[in-house]
């Protein structure tokens, strides 16, 4: 990737400035509108509830009122900001992606194809609902890459038969081609057991984890072992994939992310899942688009996701890959 982070930031503030200014004006108007509408809705709902309950406030009425307020509030917000969000993505996010590489395609309303999510076999729970958006696909230095925001949920039924949705994963999901050929499945997960229970007990738990995918692979890098836990169905191939150099690069990548990173090597691909529990690239009406912190969020996420080809050296096709 030839575009550096500072170039991208420059591009955001210089070349997109006019567009940003227009969007910013629109945002301020929209903010006013949303506040007004919400206030009106608030008054109307309160009047309605007051009439309805005749001023006797029970706990149930309060819960009902709360649900009604937040529901109406978020409906108004979504309804009013739809065009603004879509406009922002077309005129800001898309040019940013094009700036990084003109071979990349951006689809603001769809997520990464389901088969990638299933093929990664990263997620244990059954997935009943897949949502997401901001799908980017294309090639960087001839290496296929794709990513998007995803939100995976499963259906949970309680004893009374009520269904609710539980989040399995929310965050950034990236897939790219891995330069070596292999046949096994290898997984790298954040090491929660060892950081919670200490090295010895933690490794006991990992060794006897029945839900684990394959067998525990102890790696020969202490720093890597501290941060991650590796499972694989082939001890040797796991190390063929995770060379000392790649372990170091994954560690550096994790340091930059600051959010839990899981990686799977499966088929001929590498899958990375960054669990940040938020919908990325969504502009907020309540924050200025010109603010450095907000701008950096968009720019950095893009740079990080598309930078993995170079960062993990996925472009070194020396191996006689079949």
């Amino acid at each position, binding site marked *: 990737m030839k575009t550096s982070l500072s170039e991208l930031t420059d591009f955001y503030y210089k070349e997109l400035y006019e567009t940003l200014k227009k969007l910013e004006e629109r945002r301020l108007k929209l903010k006013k509108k949303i506040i007004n509408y919400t206030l009106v809705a608030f008054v109307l709902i309160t009047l309605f509830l007051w009439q309805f309950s005749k001023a006797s406030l029970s706990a149930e009425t309060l819960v009902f009122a709360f649900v009604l307020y937040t529901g109406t509030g978020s409906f108004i917000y979504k309804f009013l900001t739809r065009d603004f969000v879509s406009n922002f993505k077309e005129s800001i996010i898309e040019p940013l992606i094009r700036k990084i590489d003109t071979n990349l395609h951006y689809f603001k309303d769809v997520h990464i194809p389901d088969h990638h999510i299933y093929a990664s076999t990263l997620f244990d729970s059954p997935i009943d609902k897949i949502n997401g958006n901001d799908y980017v696909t294309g090639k960087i230095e001839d290496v296929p890459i794709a990513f998007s925001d995803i939100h995976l949920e499963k259906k949970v039924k309680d004893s009374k038969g009520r269904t609710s949705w539980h989040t399995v994963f929310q965050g950034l999901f990236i897939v790219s081609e891995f330069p070596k050929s292999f046949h096994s499945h290898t997984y790298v997960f954040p090491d929660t057991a060892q950081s919670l229970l200490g090295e010895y007990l933690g490794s006991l738990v990992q060794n006897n984890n029945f839900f684990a995918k394959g067998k525990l692979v102890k790696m020969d890098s202490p720093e890597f072992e501290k941060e991650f836990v590796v499972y694989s169905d082939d001890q*040797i191939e796991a190390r063929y994939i995770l060379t000392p150099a790649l372990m170091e690069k994954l560690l550096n990548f994790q340091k930059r992310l600051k959010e839990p990173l899981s990686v799977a090597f499966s088929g001929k691909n590498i899958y990375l899942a960054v669990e940040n529990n938020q919908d990325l690239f969504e502009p907020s009406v309540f924050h200025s688009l010109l603010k450095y912190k907000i701008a950096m969020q968009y720019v950095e996420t893009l740079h990080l996701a598309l930078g993995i080809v170079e960062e993990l050296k996925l472009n070194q096709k*020396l191996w006689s890959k079949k």
Partner: protein
Amino acid sequence: MSTPLILLIVFGIVLVLMYNSLVSKKNQVENIFSTIDTQLKKRYNLIPNLVASVSKYMEHEKSTLEELTKLRSDANKPNLSQKEKIALDKKVSQALGSIMISVENYPELKANENMMHLQRTLFELEEQIAAARRAYNQAVTDYNNALEMIPTNIMASLMGYTPKEWFEIDENERKNLDVKKLFDNI
């Protein structure tokens, strides 16, 4: 059931578990070693081709090439122990390494298509061997730990198990080769 009987059964189960875990650790070492062995053989089979391709060019490295050929014939001897194989591998890795560095001094050779193919194959094999060596060392560590730790150490000494040797991993090998630099002229 009386208490002594229960204790005896529990003790028996513990013994069986200890025995089985030691056997599985030993077999893990053997299994991985046999994979390394196959990979080393693949690499030994590349040597004649390599020697043939480079000997025309390389005048100063004649002795290293001769040593390589000799090492290969040593490696083909039957009934070598694991220890001997490990020692041979170390020598071969060193000799191959020095030849690969010398190739840099012969631009004509470096650009040779056959040579480039050989280098690629060798590089990939080296990566696989390196991975297998690391897996072997981990298996040996697990095995040796069991041999030294209480209570498996008692069982292991009764079974006549002895500690196994590691593959020494060269510090240079840990640094990944800079591939781009190696094949800059492609």
